[in-house]
């Protein structure tokens, strides 16, 4: 039914290559595709970024509205994250209400940001128990060639780091930058045959058995993780992947910081 059929020979070829420590696009097993990040691309958003990770392209937006704090956390603001797998981006993406894969991406990206306290929730409090900022983080994928997790996380971090609180819209003074306490970076790897490959393409994701996404902060601490897709890892494979993830995250973080500085 799907438009994009993965044939047995394509599948086997990727497995055989992985056995030799190779990939179809000649990347190293830990190597990321070219990353480009552009910020402040959407005037209507408080913060925004346009990210290309190889053939995957996403727009990320940060919107801030005034709202009510939850009654059990009167001194905190609210953050919600949504990632969409738009049908525009791939013939494999389905219309209709979000299903498992979209919800999973949203939640995993959300955990990376939330658990690392990237945006301290208490900094979003305007009037305890009365008013707070509600921050909407949206990932909008328009072209898909694998690894939406990392593209979306990179884009949201860049969008958050350049976001301006819209104080002027609520008679609270001048716009000011959002407080960013940490810089979580997600790295995603898949297992093909017995090898672990980072930043999988769509074909690699389709051929792989399990996938693992790990979010680390700038101190190298692990703030969120998720194993997904069918199949399993050995414990030592997970440990090794996390070690490699921490190294990769540093490279990617310096890329984001450079973009944001401009």
């Amino acid at each position, binding site marked *: 039914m799907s438009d994009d*059929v993965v*044939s*047995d*020979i394509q599948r086997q070829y*990727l497995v055989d290559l992985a056995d030799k420590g190779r990939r179809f696009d*000649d990347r190293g097993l830990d190597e990321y595709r070219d990353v480009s990040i552009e910020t402040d691309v959407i005037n209507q958003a408080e913060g925004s970024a346009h990210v290309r990770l190889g053939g995957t392209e996403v727009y990320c937006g940060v919107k801030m509205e005034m709202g009510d704090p939850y009654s059990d956390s009167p001194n905190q603001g609210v953050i919600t994250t949504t990632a969409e797998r738009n049908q525009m981006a791939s013939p494999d993406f389905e219309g209709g209400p979000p299903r498992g894969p979209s919800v999973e991406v949203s939640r995993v990206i959300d955990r990376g940001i939330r658990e690392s306290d990237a945006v301290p929730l208490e900094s979003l409090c305007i009037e305890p128990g009365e008013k707070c900022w509600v921050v909407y983080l949206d990932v909008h994928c328009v072209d898909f060639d694998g690894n939406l997790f990392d593209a979306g996380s990179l884009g949201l971090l860049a969008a958050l780091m350049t976001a301006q609180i819209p104080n002027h819209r609520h008679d609270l003074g001048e716009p000011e930058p959002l407080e960013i306490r940490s810089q979580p970076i997600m790295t995603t790897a898949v297992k093909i045959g017995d090898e672990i490959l980072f930043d999988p393409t769509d074909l690699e994701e389709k051929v792989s058995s399990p996938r693992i996404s790990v979010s680390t902060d700038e101190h190298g601490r692990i703030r969120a993780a998720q194993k997904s897709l069918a199949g399993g890892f050995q414990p030592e494979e997970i440990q090794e992947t996390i070690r490699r993830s921490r190294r990769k995250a540093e490279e990617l973080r310096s890329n984001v910081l450079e973009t944001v500085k401009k």
Partner: protein
Amino acid sequence: MSREVVVPGDLLDDSGQKEAGSNAYKEGSEVYAERVGLKKEGSNHVEVVALSGKRYEPQRGDLVIGTIIEAKPSIWFLDINGPSDVGMHVNEVPWRVDFGETTKYLDIGETALMKVYHVDEQREAQVTMKDRTCRKLEGGTTITVPPSKVPRIIGRRGSMIKTIKNNTDCRLFVGKNGVIWFDGEPEEVSHVRDAIHMIVDQAHTSGLTERVETFLDEGPEAVDPPTE
């Protein structure tokens, strides 16, 4: 030599003397383009050589590469990068296949080189493997390129594909539907894949065969930039 790029709705001819060729339509005495492409005039017709689009329009006699996506008791359905899936009846394979035994010969996910032998008025195509060039493809892998680039990959009288074959140790089939199969050592496969991408990206440039030869022989650094 430069030719005019036309888009849908562009007037191609109003002499009333010419018929609409491929990718063109006639209204009264006028012929218009129906796709983006190059205007090409014949003595009694005018047509458009399509430049845009990534899907394959099945043509009778074309050799194509497809993957089985469905197997019924007496027919397979294949994806050939076209507007619809194509059927291959059990009578159209070189083996005697008993009713209900299709997957013993070609299972879902398997890939074959086959020939388009019939396209009906509804543009539904049927394929056959009863031709000695046709076979099931085992090993290697495939990539897909826009079918409009296939003539360039094959080259005039097969010159480009000969260049590729002579300069690498890869086995290679180019399907008219834009699906290309190749097999060899990983380095060689990478090399051929890059050469094909180079042909697709530079299809409009001159001296391409020479540059592809240099690329395969001496590597990407030795290739001069293309001239438009």
